[in-house]
C-alpha cells in the first residue's frame, strides 16, 4: 500500500491533494496522513519546506498564517523513493 502511494505520487501529473490521493488509494484521509508521515520518517518522501531552521522566520510574511495552521503542506518524492520505484516497477 505504501508502494502504491509512492507510485501514485510519482505518476501525478500535477499537484494532487491529499483528498484526491486518499480517494485514488481507496483509504480514509486519516490513514493517508499516517502513511505520509511514515514515508517521510523512512526517507521515501520529504515534507517540502519543513526545514526552516536557518531562515529568518520572524521576517517571513506568512509567519502568522503558518502559526494559525493555514499553510498548505507539500510532500515530494526523495531520491530514495524514486530509486525504490525504479527497482520495484522498473520505471
Amino acid at each position: 500500500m505504501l508502494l502504491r502511494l509512492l507510485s501514485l505520487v510519482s505518476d501525478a501529473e500535477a499537484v494532487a491533494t491529499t483528498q484526491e490521493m486518499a480517494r485514488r488509494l481507496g483509504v480514509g484521509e486519516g490513514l493517508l496522513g499516517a502513511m505520509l508521515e511514515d514515508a517521510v520518517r523512512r526517507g521515501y518522501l520529504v515534507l517540502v519546506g519543513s526545514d526552516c531552521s536557518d531562515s529568518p522566520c520572524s521576517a517571513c510574511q506568512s509567519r502568522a498564517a503558518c502559526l494559525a495552521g493555514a499553510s498548505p503542506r507539500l510532500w515530494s518524492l526523495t531520491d530514495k523513493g524514486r530509486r525504490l520505484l525504479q527497482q520495484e516497477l522498473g520505471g
Partner: protein
Amino acid sequence: MGPSEQAQAGDTLARARESTEALSIALLGPPYVGKTTLFDLLAGLSQRVNLRPGTTVEVRSGYYRRDGRWLEIVDLPAVYSLSASSPDEQVARDHIVKERPDVVVVMLSATNLEHGLYLVAEALELAAPVVVAINMMDAALRDGIRIEESVLRAALGVPVVAMVASRREGVQPLLEAIAGVAEGTIPYSPNPPALGPELASLLDGVEGLLGETGIPPYPRRWCAIKLLEGDREMEQLAQATLPEDRWEELHSLLHQNEDAVVAIASARYEWIDRTVRAALFRPLHDSLSLTERLDQVATHPYLGPLALGAVLALFFWLVYQVGEPLVGLLNDGVAEGSHRLRFALQGAPPWLVELLANGILGGVGTVVSLLPILAIFFLGMSALRQVGYMARAAFVADRFMRAMGLHGLSLVPLFLGFGCNVSSVLGARQVDSERARLLTILLAPLVPCSGRMVLLVFIAGLLYGGAAPLVIWGLVAMNLLLLALTGVLLDRTVLRSERPALIMELPPYRLPNWRAMAFETWQNAKEFAVRAGTVILVFSLLIWALADLPTGSMEESYLAQAGRHMEPLGRLMGLDWRMMVALLTSFLARKESALATLGILAAGGSESSLSVALPQMLTPASALAYLVVQMTFVPCASTLAAVLHQTRSWRWTAFGLGYQLALSLVVGIATYQTAHMLGWGL
C-alpha cells in the same frame, strides 16, 4: 503538593512496592489522545517523575488501588510508533520489552483511529498483552463517527474499551479489562498484521541467522521485523551479540532487502484499512462539508482559475476602495503640513525650509501616507491565507504554471513574493533541484510585491478613477503572465529540469484568527514605518540634495543633468526625466522610494501635493507605460542581494537583472507606442 500530601504519597508508594501482587500497567499512545488525563485520574497524588537513564526523557509513574490490589501505572512518552527513531520511542519500547508490564494499554483517539492503530499493530507484534482504550468518543459522536467496539474487538482479538477520560466515562470497564487480561479471565487471542508468504520467508531467514537465543530480551520474531525495518538500535545490538560471520551474513541479507520496510509497513496499513472498514462508520456524504462544497469550485480545473481571478479582483477593489480615500486624506495632510511648515519657518534659511518641507515631508511624508493601502493589503492577504484560500490559489496556480512548464516546488516560494520578493528568493532554497531552484530565484522578482502594489494602487487611483481596480487587476495579471512566459522560456532553453510531482494537504476553511491577522499586519506596517524612517529618509535627503544642488534650481540640478541622459529612453514611453529618476530610485532603495522621489521632484519646490502634481505630469497612456515598467522593472537592491546570495553567481544575478531590465523597457515602450497608435489618452 504540600508536605502532608507528599508524606501520604510516600506511604502509598512504599505500601505498593511492598505488595508482590501489584499489577504493572504501561500507558502507550500517540500525542493528544488524552493519555495524561487518564493517568492523572488514576495516579492522582501518588505520581512522580523519573528521568530515564542515559536520556532526557521523563516518564511519570504512580499507583492506583482497586479491589484491594495495587496497580503500578507508567505513563510512557507519547509516540506514533515503536521504531526507536526518537528517544521517546526508544524509552517506550524498552519499557515494554525490558520491564515486561502485565498489561499495555494502547490509547487511541476515536476521531483519528487510523493513526493510533499503527501503534496497536506494533505492540501486538511485540507480543505485549494489549488492551485498547478508545478515548474521545464524545468528539467522534459529534462528528457523526460511530465505532463498533465488538467488531473492533473481534478484528484485533484483544479487549477494546470506549471511553471519555475527561468525564471519567469508561474508566471502570477499562480497569476490568486490564484485570481480565492480567489474570487470564477474558478471551485474549491477538491478531497482529499478517506479513504475507514472501515476507514470512524472509523473516524466517533473518530469525535463523539470529539463532536460538536471538537478541535478549527482545522477542526473536520482533527483532527480525525491526532489523528488516532498518532499526539502527537492533542492528547495533545484533552486531554486538552475534558471532562475526553470522553478523556479516545477516548484514548482507538486510542490505539486499533494505526496502523490505515498505512491504512491512504496507502489510500494517492494509491491516489498519481492513480493521477501520469493518469497525468504523463515518457519516454518509449526502451532505458535503462546507470545505468540500467550497472546494468543488475553488479547486475545479476550470472554475478554480475563474474563482481565483474573481477573488483577486475583489481583493484589489477593496484595497482601492478603502485605501485610496485614506491615502488622499493623508496626502492632503502632507501638503497642508508642508504649507504650515513653510509658514512657521519664515525667516529661516531657504535651504533649511526646503530640506524640511520638501526633502523630508515631501519624500518620507508621501511614502508614509501610503500606510493605509499597505495595511489593508496585508490585512487582506493575511485573511486570505488564514481562511485557507491561499492554499487553494496555490493549487489552482500550480496546474496553470505546470501546464506552461513551471516547477511545482516553486509554488510556495513564488506565493511568498506577494508580500516581499526577498522572502520569495530565500524561500526558493526548499526546491531540491539546482536548476529548478535557479529558475524560481530568477522568476521571484516578477511577482508583484507589496511595494509595487502600493505604487500601483496609488498611481492608478490618481490617474484612472473608477477604472483603477480594472487597471490594477490587469497589471497583476500581466505580471503573472510574463512570469509564466519567462518560466516557459527559461525552462525550455537554459534551465530545463524535471518536474517532481507533489502531494498537497489543503487545510480546511476556517474563520481567520483575528489576533494573528492583526499581528501580521502590525509587523508589516511596523517594518514599513521603520523603513520609511531609515532607508527612505536617507534616500529622500539624498534625492533632495541632488535635486537642489548646485544652484538651488531643480532644472539645473545634478539629478536633472543625470536624469536627462535617460530622457531619450523615457520619451519612448512618454516619461520625462523625473519619472525616469523615480524609476531608477525604486531599484536603488525600495520600490516605495519611487514615490518619495516623485514627492520631492513633482512638487518641485511648490506646495502642491503629489496627488495634485502627478496627474499634471502624466497622461493616461504614459502613466500606464510607467506602471507597466514599474511592475516588471528590476527588483530593489535588497532582492538583488538575496538573488546573489542564493545563486552564489554574479553571472546569473547579472542575467536576471539584464533580462528584467530589457523586459520592462520592451513592454513599457510597447504599451505607450500601442496607445500612441490607437490615439488613446495622449
